[in-house]
């Protein structure tokens, strides 16, 4: 079945081919069947808001396809992107478990398939299925790990240049590019969004990119970035 956003919706978790690779989804049959009964498969276009920081938790969102931007906001409207969630992640988990308001805002940056489960259903499901409960603990641990990393990066980095260098090195380590002398990466975010990820202004990010290009540390073609001098970038990151 094709959805309006060009997504091929996987209606049933039981027949999902991607399940085996996903931490949460790879459940034993009985738990999977129970999950199947309580979830709603939905498709969202790019730019849809799944939930907003401060809202009381309605339930969890399992990201099946596409990516979601997770951010927090200050009262004066400043945004900080904590993470770009990838397929297989469960969003809104800690708020749903604890009953406290969602801590983050989730906004899709691609057309996404999301499986939604209502809070009461999910809590009952966790009580009945020990395996699923363990997977949730694993997911929460990963998120905690990420939050600590964020605190370290925001609180202990000296400058925006250091944070940008760290971010580029982190991205360049993906998709088997880590071992390459001159890794290549695809910039999926705008300068504004990168600024929101490292807690600085859009102007600073643009200036830093220009500087990096001038010093021949990076080279860009469209949205593809080539890191030409990894050592210099590492030096900037203080690694």
């Amino acid at each position, binding site marked *: 079945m094709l959805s309006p956003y060009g997504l091929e919706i996987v209606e049933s978790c039981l027949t999902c081919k991607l399940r085996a690779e996903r931490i949460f989804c790879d459940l034993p049959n009985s738990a999977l069947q129970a999950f199947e009964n309580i979830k709603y498969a939905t498709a969202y276009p790019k730019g849809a808001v799944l939930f907003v920081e401060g809202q009381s938790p309605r339930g969890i969102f399992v990201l099946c396809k596409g990516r979601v931007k997770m951010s927090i906001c200050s009262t004066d409207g400043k945004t900080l992107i904590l993470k770009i969630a990838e397929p297989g992640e469960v969003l809104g988990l800690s708020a749903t478990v604890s009953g406290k308001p969602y801590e983050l805002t989730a906004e899709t940056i691609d057309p996404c398939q999301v499986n939604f489960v209502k809070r009461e259903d999910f809590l009952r499901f966790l009580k009945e299925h020990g395996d699923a409960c363990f997977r949730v603990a694993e997911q929460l641990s990963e998120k*905690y790990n990420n939050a600590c990393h964020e605190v370290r990066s925001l609180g202990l*980095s000296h400058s925006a240049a250091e944070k940008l260098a760290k971010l580029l090195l982190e991205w360049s380590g993906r998709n088997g590019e880590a071992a390459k002398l001159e890794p290549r990466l695809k910039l999926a975010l705008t300068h504004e969004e990168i600024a929101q990820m490292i807690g600085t202004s859009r102007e600073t990010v643009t200036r830093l990119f220009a500087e990096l290009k001038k010093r021949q540390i990076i080279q860009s073609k469209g949205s593809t970035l080539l890191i030409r001098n990894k050592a210099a970038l590492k030096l900037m990151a203080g690694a």
Partner: protein
Amino acid sequence: MESAIQLSCFDCSLRPDRVFCDLPADALEAFDAIKTIALYPRGTTLFQEGRPARGVFMLCDGRAKLTVCSGNGRRLTLRIAGPGEMLGLSAAVSGTPYEVTAEMLDNSQVAFVRRKDMLHFLRMHRDACLQVVHLLSQDLHTAYDRVRAIGLVRTRQHGPVKTAV
């Protein structure tokens, strides 16, 4: 150390008030069997950021400081953990290195459980696993609060507003 060492969780009078400790009898018995109790003086480092997760530390009493460290040795306090909290939990569950350093702020009694034993215990006892999910959610809430406090204040400092104030 004000109170005498308490070897069994069954004799602990504080148990009903604690998120994790208030377990059904069979789970408590199993937990009792895998934990080792130790008294640590103030200033002891329970575990260090970046080291492989050996296991979890339950603070029976006293407090511990959780810090993160930068490459050049600067430290930032994430939070102060209090009695009844389980430290090193997320690293032990996910099998990743400890994300923080935990240092005792008081002379305290601490129960230690090896990672392998803890994972086995959680798989066998659904109630305990659910409590752990609650504990992790709480930890995550506090961590996000910290991100908000640090990240958004810094954002503002970098902005043009700084010169206007």
